[in-house]
């Protein structure tokens, strides 16, 4: 066991997978000597050499497109995209090819790439360094999308992602990179893709989030006297509907929290699934505490944009109170 930050946990996972399997190679901008702009690949260039840790030209479509080719030939590339805003130029290669190659060729070709991408706001970065595009990639069948919220999960999920035979977008909440440390086993282990984690058990309401806002959810729980169940999704796609449904069937209420804009965000999908599966159990409308339906502002206003604890608390209180005052508890 070591007490690691999220950055360190990812770094450790990369080292272990690279030692184990020489088909794993890293490519991207500044991943080599510089160790990545967030230092996630620190030390890897020295350890594994320039053939396995490769600085590429500044071209995201190129990074993903060549990774697809590398993967089609049997390697397991782990491309890094520097910020989620710069995943956009690779959208085409990801959705048009990576996601479809197995289907298109009936498994004759597969694309086992793990595309690492720092994600989200809260670090006072410039424009396009603070977005949360996970719903975009979840909407594309054929991709898997994960986002850990803790060092432990980061290591286990990354190892799963690298070993996964299909393309995985591995979003790293940059606000949590060094936010806290956690005991992380030194040996390799996996966290299953597609399984959510119940962070806190509770009975009054189910709180669902992923990535950096999980910490905000914890803060909201800490300041509440209600019994709140917190689910950290970890996997965006596939989504662990079962864990969510089971919880909401218990609590009858749900609040979903994410940084992306509300409109067509992942919250909508989760709310819809809950509604479909828990219709008869719902005691209040499911609430979404999310980024606003406007462009992520420059950093002076980012805190106002993000779903911080006070906004989560307000929604929790409201959802819990819903119906009780007027005796409509069983009306929903």
């Amino acid at each position: 066991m070591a007490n690691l930050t999220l950055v360190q946990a990812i770094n450790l996972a990369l080292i272990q997978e690279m030692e184990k399997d020489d088909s794993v190679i890293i490519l991207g901008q500044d991943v080599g000597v510089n160790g990545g702009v967030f230092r996630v690949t620190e030390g890897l260039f020295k350890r594994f050499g320039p053939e396995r840790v490769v600085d590429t030209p500044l071209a995201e479509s190129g990074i993903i497109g060549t990774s697809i080719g590398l993967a089609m030939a049997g390697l397991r590339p782990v491309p890094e995209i520097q910020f989620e805003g710069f995943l956009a130029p690779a959208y085409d290669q990801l959705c048009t090819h990576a996601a479809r190659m197995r289907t298109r060729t009936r498994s004759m070709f597969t694309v086992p790439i793990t595309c690492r991408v720092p994600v989200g706001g809260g670090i006072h970065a410039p424009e396009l360094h603070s977005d949360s595009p996970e719903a975009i990639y979840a909407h594309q069948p054929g991709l898997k999308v994960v986002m850990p919220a803790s060092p432990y999960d980061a290591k286990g999920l990354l190892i799963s992602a690298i070993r996964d035979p299909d393309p995985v977008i591995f979003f790293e909440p940059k606000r949590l990179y060094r936010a806290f440390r956690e005991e992380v086993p030194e040996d390799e282990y996996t966290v299953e893709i597609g399984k959510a984690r119940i962070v806190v058990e509770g009975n009054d309401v189910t709180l669902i989030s992923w990535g950096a806002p999980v910490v905000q959810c914890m803060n909201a729980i800490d300041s509440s006297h209600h019994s709140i169940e917190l689910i950290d999704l970890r996997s965006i796609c596939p989504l662990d509907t079962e864990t969510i449904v089971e919880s909401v069937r218990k609590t009858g209420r749900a609040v979903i929290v994410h940084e992306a804009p509300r409109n067509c965000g992942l919250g909508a999908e989760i709310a819809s699934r809950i509604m479909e599966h828990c219709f008869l159990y719902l005691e209040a409308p499911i609430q979404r505490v999310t980024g606003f339906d406007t462009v992520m502002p420059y950093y002076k206003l980012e805190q106002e944009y993000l779903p911080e604890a006070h906004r989560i608390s307000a929604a929790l209180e409201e959802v819990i109170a819903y119906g009780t005052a007027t005796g409509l508890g069983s009306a929903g």
Partner: protein
Amino acid sequence: MPAKIVFHAKIESVSILDEQGNFDAKLGKDVIPDTDVVRLYEHMTICRQFDEVAFKLQRSGRMGTYPENRGQEAVSLGAVYALHPDDWLVPCYRENCGLFWRGLPMEYILLHWMGDERGNEIPRDLYMTPQAIPIGTQMLHAVGLAWAGKYRKKDSIACAFFGDGATSEGDCHEALNFAANLDLPVVFVCQNNGWAISVPTKMQCSAPTLAQRGLAYGMECVQCDGNDIFAMAKVVGEAAERARRDHRPTFIEALTYRLGDHTTADDARRYRDEAELKKWLKRDPLIRIRTYLQQRKLFDDSREKALQARAREEVAAAVKRAEEIAAPTSSDMFDWLYAEMPGELATQRATLRTSGLGQDPSQLQEQSPAPSRNP
């Protein structure tokens, strides 16, 4: 020296067997032995037949949109002829002739255009990727495939095919740039057939040649007569050697012409000058190679007749094989998305529905309406 010259370049254009049947013996020496020229001619003839039949299949409603390859056969054939059997072929959709030469059964191409993914289930030992529909995107895959070969210290390289239109896409540039800067063994073969649907090449590249695209990357680049199978074989052969030996990429502009419409959905008469077409009909690669053989008495009318019959037979057999394959079943849609099927998708597969899945009917029986959980 205030305004000094810091870079010099020139582009060569290679032609061996020209339109008039003149053969450059020096350049053409040992490029293709006579017996192979015969085989290549026969193969091209069969491909031409394939093209005609495919066109008719579309017209008679037995196949979807089809892009004729007619007139461009020598490009991919000459290239594939010059490559090793385990060099990656990364085609667009006008390389049937080269793909068949490598060994792809013809029914794969038919199935693809018949709207069936099984047309892309290409045996891995053929070392070819499926046809690329989004223009300009596949060259990056070639770069990755070549990179993997280099990483594994294999002797194999990758050869990407694409049109003149494709060179306008950003991905094309990124592919060339990656290959050049990372020293990767890729042969880029641009089929400049004069048109991208209705848009003439000069709107993709107003420079004198497309070959000079490669200059931007410090890459070897060369133009050649794409309707001249000797020139193609020679230029690609040299590029392949450079790739294998030095891990350096090459950009090849193959001058050719689309004798047909863009696809069966297109009508080139709307935008194309008849005179231009006529000029190029005379440059048909098939005529040229036939002339070569005739001049050297390597082929005659009786062999031609037999060949035509064989072509009809082989293509008909391929059509039969393609049409006899049972229609895909709806579960096929779901079965190849991931290595393992997620639960929700399995439900969709089982029910063929996206609605109603959450309405567990047992809820209605077992549950009393939404119990209140509040204190």
